[in-house]
């Protein structure tokens, strides 16, 4: 038959709201996540984690446990298959945390020491609890503080600079009429995706099949092949539905454990992390200690920007939370210095968590800007207008587009900013003090090489295959709309198949780069397919398939500062008798490229802003110095915003297009959180007259600050 391409006029799908293509499956419970797919002969693995924070395993006394009902195996460093971490994967060197059971050393509390495998999960759980592990305990150090001994500046790579320097900061500060010099801290924060990490592994005719919950099935497949020294073609990883990820769902111990057990037992094995295990096995956001110094003329023009940030990492792997990178894009000054330092402690390795770097970095710098506005007697938005750079402050490169001020203008209009009295502590409503605050936001717009295959089927429909991941972002739906427009058909004619490593190399769902990277590959393949179909002729039963690879096109992109921008607004009410802070409303206006699906994009922005609220007021993992483990590592001990914590949040966007991108996408997964905590902290200052420089803004901190002057402790 002939295809309808070019013959059927269809309205553009991109830009109009579409409910999720998998929405019905999600609201009916039909959508199956990784731990929910039945397999014959499935065995269940249960992890046992270290109870000490540093030392060596003296013995794993598996004998008594092996005689318990249904127990099939106890894997530990004495008997587990060997793996190698001597490779560089898609996202760099692997965190040795994934190389479970390879030695007797324990580098942190909650380190995997054994896997119990049984016929049922109840049997495995009981045996895991009964397993006696003896340790030689050594003194540990988990005390993170600003400038503590052992802090160092990590090595820079061409892409990721640890430190940037321009001009003479001290001289410019000395010459400044107004100076802000303040320290800010953010606590350890956890992703806590609602779906715990789960993987099922089995060998099928010489191929390793893994059903997983991850942000990139090709990434996980390639890393598993490396770890187990397998031919990459013999590993297949699928991840159809993912119950939240936020940076935590990469290569993690559960997949490695499942593969080890399936290999040893010659049967399918599923390993699901418990909620408590997630707190030490899947990464987290490092606490940060940040010092910001700003120097300005009396009219607010910045002479000096100095942002020195510090985070922690583990003793087995270096992860740097790049908080200070935020200012390299946002604000120029005659003298400019940014540095991210790190200290290695006896803790689990931190990792990327929604807006890594930008989330804590924006809290510090956007709070400091607000302090500078106060000292200059300027409106905070006017201060930002005065310091709007026309080029990258550090790179000197032009921006692909920078519509920050348009965001502030639109946001100020809708929020009612013009009527704001800037003086703090004046508005009272019963026991509540009221205030409003604002902050800017930015996040990089990146793209990475990806491949896609688009098939024109004999029945007139199209099938797209790409190793994309939909972790709740709406990517599956966005890509369907993009494919529909690229093929000039209605979205109903598109079959979008994702999250299967057999579909080839593609970017992971991360860095706000997924949808942009995948859309580019799909658009390229679809364009070529349309040309092929325009030549006429029939479509054979197997269809006509065109493959794309964007490596060359992405590599040819001109050097630019490519970022999304945004303006955050918040109104808070502070009860100074109880210390409670309530956010009454939030508004975020974003310049984040072309918006593919307004319905799901709004959810993404609002979700990010909800994270910002949660970061500002609630989230804090407390590490016990004596045990080296977290206090209350569960969803009661680690509170993130519940429904009653969240007011009406509105998000919208202004026109903003990156003309170098075939679709004009910039990526929207992370910018919603950026600046949101600062906007809330700035509103708390406006309400009370007290600066809160340490997150979260807990009731006790509000109470301690009452009657005090300056910053709260």
């Amino acid at each position, binding site marked *: 038959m002939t295809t309808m391409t070019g013959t059927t006029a269809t309205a553009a799908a991109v830009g109009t709201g579409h*409910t*999720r293509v998998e*929405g*019905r*499956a*999600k*609201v*009916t*419970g*039909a*959508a*199956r*996540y990784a*731990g*929910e797919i*039945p397999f014959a002969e499935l065995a269940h693995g249960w992890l046992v984690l270290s109870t000490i924070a540093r030392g060596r395993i003296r013995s794993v006394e598996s004998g008594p446990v092996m005689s318990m009902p249904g127990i099939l195996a106890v894997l530990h460093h004495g008997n587990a298959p060997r793996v190698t971490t001597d490779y560089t994967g898609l996202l760099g060197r692997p965190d040795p945390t994934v190389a479970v059971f390879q030695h007797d050393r324990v580098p942190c509390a909650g380190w995997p020491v054994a896997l119990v495998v049984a016929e*049922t*999960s*109840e*049997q495995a759980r*009981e045996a895991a609890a009964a397993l006696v592990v003896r340790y030689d305990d050594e003194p540990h150090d988990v005390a993170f503080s600003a400038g503590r001994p052992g802090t160092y500046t990590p090595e820079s790579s061409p892409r990721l600079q640890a430190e940037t320097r321009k001009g003479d900061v001290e001289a410019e500060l000395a010459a400044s009429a107004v100076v802000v010099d303040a320290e800010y801290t953010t606590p350890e924060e956890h*992703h*806590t*995706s*609602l*779906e*715990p990490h789960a993987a099922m592994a089995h060998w099928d005719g010489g191929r390793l099949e893994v059903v997983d919950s991850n942000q990139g099935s090709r990434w996980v497949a390639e890393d598993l092949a490396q770890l187990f020294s397998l031919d990459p073609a013999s590993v297949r990883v699928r991840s159809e*539905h*993912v*119950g*939240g*990820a*936020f940076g935590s769902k990469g290569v993690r111990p559960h997949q490695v454990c499942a593969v080890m057990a399936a290999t040893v037992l010659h049967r399918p094995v599923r390993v*699901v992390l*418990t*909620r408590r295990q997630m707190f030490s096995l899947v990464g987290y956001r490092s606490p940060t200690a940040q010092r910001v110094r700003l120097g300005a003329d009396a009219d607010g023009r910045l002479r000096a920007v100095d942002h020195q940030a510090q985070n922690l990492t583990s003793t087995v792997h270096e992860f740097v939370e790049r908080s200070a990178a935020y200012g390299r894009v946002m604000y120029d000054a005659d003298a400019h210095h940014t540095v991210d330092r790190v200290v290695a402690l006896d803790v689990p390795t931190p990792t990327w968590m929604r807006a890594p770097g930008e989330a804590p970095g924006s809290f510090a710098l956007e709070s400091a800007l607000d302090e500078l506005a106060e000292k200059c007697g300027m409106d905070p938005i006017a201060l930002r207008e005065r310091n709007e750079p026309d080029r990258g402050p550090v790179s000197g490169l032009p921006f692909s587009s920078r519509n920050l001020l348009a965001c502030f203008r639109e946001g100020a209009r809708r929020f009612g900013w013009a009527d704001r009295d800037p003086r703090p502590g004046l508005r009272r409503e019963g026991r509540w003090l009221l205030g409003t605050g604002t902050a800017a936001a930015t996040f990089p717009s990146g793209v990475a090489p990806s491949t896609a295959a688009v098939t024109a089927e004999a029945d007139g429909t199209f099938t797209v295959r790409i190793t994309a991941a939909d*972790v*709740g*972002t709406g990517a599956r739906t966005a890509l369907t709309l993009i494919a529909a427009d690229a093929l000039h058909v209605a979205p109903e004619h598109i079959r979008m198949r994702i999250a299967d490593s057999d579909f080839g190399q593609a970017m992971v769902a991360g860095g706000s780069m997924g949808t942009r990277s995948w859309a580019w590959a799909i658009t390229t393949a679809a364009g070529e397919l349309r040309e092929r179909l325009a030549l006429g002729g029939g479509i054979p039963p197997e269809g006509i398939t065109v493959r794309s690879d964007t490596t060359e096109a992405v590599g040819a992109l001109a050097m630019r500062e490519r970022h999304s921008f945004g303006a955050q607004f918040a109104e808070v009410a502070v009860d100074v008798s109880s210390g409670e802070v309530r956010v009454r409303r939030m508004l975020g206006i974003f310049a984040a490229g072309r918006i593919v699906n307004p*319905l*799901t994009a*709004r*959810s*993404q922005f*609002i*979700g990010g*802003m*909800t*994270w910002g609220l*949660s970061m500002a007021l609630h989230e804090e993992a407390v590490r016990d110095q004596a045990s080296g483990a977290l206090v209350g590592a569960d*969803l*009661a001990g680690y509170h*993130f*915003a*519940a*429904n*009653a914590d*969240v007011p*009406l*949040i509105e998000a919208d966007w202004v026109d903003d297009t990156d003309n170098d991108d075939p679709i004009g996408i910039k990526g929207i997964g992370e910018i919603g959180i950026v600046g949101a905590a600062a906007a809330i902290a700035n509103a708390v200052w406006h309400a009370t007259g007290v600066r809160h420089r340490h997150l979260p803004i807990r009731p006790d901190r509000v109470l301690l600050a009452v009657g005090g002057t300056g910053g709260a402790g």
Partner: protein
Amino acid sequence: MAHSTAGVITLTVNGEKHTLPVDHRTTLLDALRERLDLTGTKKGCDLGQCGACTVLLDGRRAVSCLQLAVAAEGREITTIEGVSDGERLHPVQQAFLDLDGYQCGYCTPGQICSAIAVIEEHAAGWPSAATADVRPEAGPPPLTADEIRERMSGNLCRCGAYVSIVQAVAQAADAEGAA
């Protein structure tokens, strides 16, 4: 062994009776997911803290991870798989779909089961911590956004879809009120 650690029970789920042998330690949540293949009910924490495993027990919401399967015998269990009317979605399901009251979808079945009960609890005049006048003669309070937020706070959503969830519950309540 001196005592039995397993037994045969009969569970009534979505109107259907299922007789199955269970380990006595099996939670209702695991029985639904692992034994009856009703995986729509989700395990988010297994500690009664997140609400992802919410089902209706005799019409009232309950977290199934804190119920032993053996204790659920004789009760009417309704899961997400049982709330629609055939192919026609329950108004709460339809509202979540239309208003994008979810992202990853993992907390969604629990949110929907909870919301169905919230609308009934409210209609029956049950007050909440957000209710200004809790006297019985005051009648059901208006189902404001604050009432919905308070009543839905046992169901955590990490994607941050609360704003749309509140709108979806309000829309579904309106639809049911009008029906």
